[in-house]
């Protein structure tokens, strides 16, 4: 039996969730999610710099999904969705958490994992230099991604990027990325 996406998504929906979405991540959907979460952070009266960090991380997370997700496998109910993704935003007294999940072809996992591990092992200063290096030297990919999204998220949050791959079938996995945004500045 293959991985059950419905159950997986349900399990992510804990009490502190302020926004969740599962479906096709189109440009229009991105607009709606940004508006909705921005409103939530305004109503919560968080300091502007926290609201901005949340917004920035949300933009990069959603656009990572938009540019990089793989199509769902044949047996998946939303198979027609070209950009199927899931996003859950949580708010607690320690800060925000943004978790994205999407299908990924297994042959891409190694590269992604190496990239994430490299970011997670880097110091604040190294991440800053890595960001500047990619900004200066790398071209925008044909998909439109700048290759900077994850580095930018790590830089803005100052936190480890928690991730996990779950087997869906022999060719495809679900990639889960969990990003914490601290309510109080630690640096």
């Amino acid at each position, binding site marked *: 039996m293959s991985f059950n996406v419905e159950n997986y998504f349900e399990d992510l929906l804990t009490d502190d969730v302020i926004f969740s979405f599962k479906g096709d991540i189109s440009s229009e959907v*991105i607009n709606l999610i940004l508006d909705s979460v921005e409103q939530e952070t305004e109503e919560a009266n968080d300091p502007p710099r926290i609201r901005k960090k949340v917004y920035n991380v949300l933009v990069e997370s959603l656009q990572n999904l938009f540019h990089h997700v793989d199509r769902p496998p044949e047996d998946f109910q939303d198979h027609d969705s070209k950009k199927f993704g899931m996003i859950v935003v949580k708010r607690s007294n320690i800060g925000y958490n943004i978790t994205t999940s999407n299908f990924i072809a297994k042959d891409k996992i190694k590269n992604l994992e190496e990239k994430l591990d490299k970011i997670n092992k880097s110091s604040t200063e190294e991440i800053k230099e890595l960001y500047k290096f990619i900004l200066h030297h*790398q071209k925008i990919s044909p998909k439109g991604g700048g290759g*900077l999204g994850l580095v930018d998220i790590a830089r803005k949050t100052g936190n480890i990027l928690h991730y996990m791959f779950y087997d869906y079938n022999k060719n495809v996995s679900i990639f889960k990325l969990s990003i914490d945004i601290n309510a109080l500045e630690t640096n």
Partner: protein
Amino acid sequence: MEPIIIEGTPKTPTVHFDAGQGVFKLEGRSIPENSVEFYKPLVDWLDQYKEKPLPKTTVEVKLEYFNTSSSKCILDVFKKLEMIHKAKNDVEIKWYYEEDDEDMLEAGEDYESIIRVPFEMIEIVE
């Protein structure tokens, strides 16, 4: 040269590039999925402007948010300004950031360290 005037949207900035005044403004949010599509006309326009620039060019960047794909396009815009500056013209980039927005200040400093054009960092205090 015809100016470029583009009204801002929730995902793209207001653009006001006036070759007659030598003042170029970029303001608002720059978070489109396809940044190249938005910025290419601006970069092409600057390519023309750099052939006959005014003795002084001032660029005002007042962005609230920008995504990483815009960051590369903004660098392309700045590279054109660097060429104008290199050709012995006066160029200045005014980089505005809101009070306490350290991320936006740092982003400006990143560009300042890459591009050889004088930058002025200006804090917007409300």
